[in-house]
């Protein structure tokens, strides 16, 4: 008896918590199908009084939505290529090549994760503007081609779990280091590359601070910057803004739904090790 009561209580608590956690998503989606009048009517109803689709075309027309989306896709795609190209190579050198620098660089990689962007933003802005590169996508894309510490750590941990014998087998056949990396190590790390690929996609897609600092020309905005244009009038058209946000968030949710396992593993392996 006592057991079944506590079971019911547990389920009630879990259901309530789950509901609370998904409620912002429900608010976002349901508001996007309301008329603006409906959204601003007391009493506030969760579901639309009348379901309308007009917010979507209206949202796309109010700002150059698809242009911003194109910009975002472009930046995301190039960043993704850069990260996938460089990360495994650096990670490989840290655990699979025996050289003096490996430990030093591993330490430095960890250390750079702690450098606040607040510290680096002014000098970076200064140098990019001196080179005439503000209002280009270079500042947003370039860092991807030099490896991001967080991704390197994840891939390094993966490589560390691969037996050396597997890779050294190539040595006997007289393969060069690069051949061993390219032909043996790289194919092995496909699953972890998927993981960092997803993170790289998300990071680039959602990035806000870099576009905010380096992109001031409205035509070059990314979606994360563009969304604010619905707010920069005297009042906010929440129904349209939510419609725009739904479309912005959708690719992320789809990606998450497909690759949930990779997400969980990536965080579990990198978060645990100090």
């Amino acid at each position, binding site marked *: 008896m006592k057991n079944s009561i506590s079971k019911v209580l547990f389920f009630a608590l879990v259901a309530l918590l789950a509901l609370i956690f998904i409620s912002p998503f429900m*608010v976002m989606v349901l508001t996007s199908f309301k008329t603006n009048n409906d959204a601003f009517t007391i009493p*506030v109803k969760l579901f639309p009084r009348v379901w309308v689709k007009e917010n979507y075309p209206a949202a796309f027309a109010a700002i150059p939505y698809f242009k911003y989306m194109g910009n975002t896709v472009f930046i995301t795609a190039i960043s993704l290529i850069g990260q996938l190209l460089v990360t495994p190579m650096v990670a490989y050198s840290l655990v699979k090549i025996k*050289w003096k620098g490996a430990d030093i660089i591993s330490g430095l990689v960890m250390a*750079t994760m702690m450098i606040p962007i607040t510290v680096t933003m002014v*000098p*970076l802005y200064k140098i990019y503007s001196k080179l005439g590169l503000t209002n280009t996508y270079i500042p947003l894309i370039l860092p991807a081609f030099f490896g991001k510490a967080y991704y390197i750590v994840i891939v390094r941990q993966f490589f560390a779990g691969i037996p050396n014998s597997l890779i050294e087998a190539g040595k006997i056949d007289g393969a060069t280091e690069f051949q061993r990396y390219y032909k043996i190590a790289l194919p092995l790390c496909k699953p972890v590359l998927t993981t960092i690929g997803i993170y790289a996609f998300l990071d680039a897609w959602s990035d806000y601070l870099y576009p905010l600092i380096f992109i001031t020309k409205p035509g070059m905005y990314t979606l994360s910057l563009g969304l604010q244009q619905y707010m920069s009038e005297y009042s906010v058209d929440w129904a349209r803004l939510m419609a725009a946000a739904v479309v912005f968030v959708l690719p992320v949710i789809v990606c998450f739904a497909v690759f949930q396992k990779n997400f969980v593993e990536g965080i579990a392996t990198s978060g645990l090790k100090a």
Partner: protein
Amino acid sequence: MKGRNATQRDFINGLLFSSPWILGFMAFSVYPLISSLYYSLTKFNAVTAPQWVGLDNYKDIFSDPLVWKSLGNTLFMAFVSTPINLFVALLLASIVCANFKGRGFVRTAFFLPSVIPMVAATMVWIWMFDPTYGYINNVLSWFGISGPAWLMDAHYTKWALVLMGTWNTGTMMLVCMSALQSVPRSYYESAEIDGAGKVARFFYITVPCIAHVLVYQAILSTINAFQYFQQVYIIISANAGVKGGSAAGGPENSILMYPLYVFHNAFTYLKMGKASAMAWLLFIIVAILTVIMTKVTRKVTENAGGE
């Protein structure tokens, strides 16, 4: 002789393979850090060249009440939000570690907020916090509570941020989850035989076993609090209506976070020297926290291993 050649070759290969990161490290970390230190001793804006002013910026910082205000706000986030988030994350993690139907769905529900782009998430929250038309106050009114003006009332703005933060603990939850799962089952079993209750088991077995993870997460969360920027920038822009408008710190500057004030000094007031000095102060704080984090985590891990 051959061995030496091999060592040399490995060294060259290692250097070659990691060269992109080394170059990036120079360009995106070392150079900005050093020049930021130099800039902090100068006066300049985006157009003019830096002009040496010695320690003036630092004197300016210490006499600027808004610097202290923003530091206070940031410390609030660090020391109020962190324990709350850790508690929530641990609670959620314990839930998803239990075995029940629908566990996968619940885990997704708890984690999903963490992958949503911050801009979109923050905007939904601004809408939900709306004093009149927002869902939060309407739900509160079912219970006869008349909710505050949240993001428009200086007394509640930071608590609204804390609330938003708890929604975003998915990553922490996952880390706690895999820590919980790594606690050997046999520990619980033998404690149960000894007659230890659920609560006792939690405090005498679970907590010590995952202490190093909790400590690490707590300090990481504190460090992150010192980087708290996007959410407040978006909230303030939404309230002010204009990008970087005059209401630079929210109601009574109650959500003027330290990084936000650095940003405003650099890009709104164009006091880039002062911004750099503030940034370096932040860097020192974060560096100290990082050192503490590594030391403490090592110690906790050693203690756990020694038992």
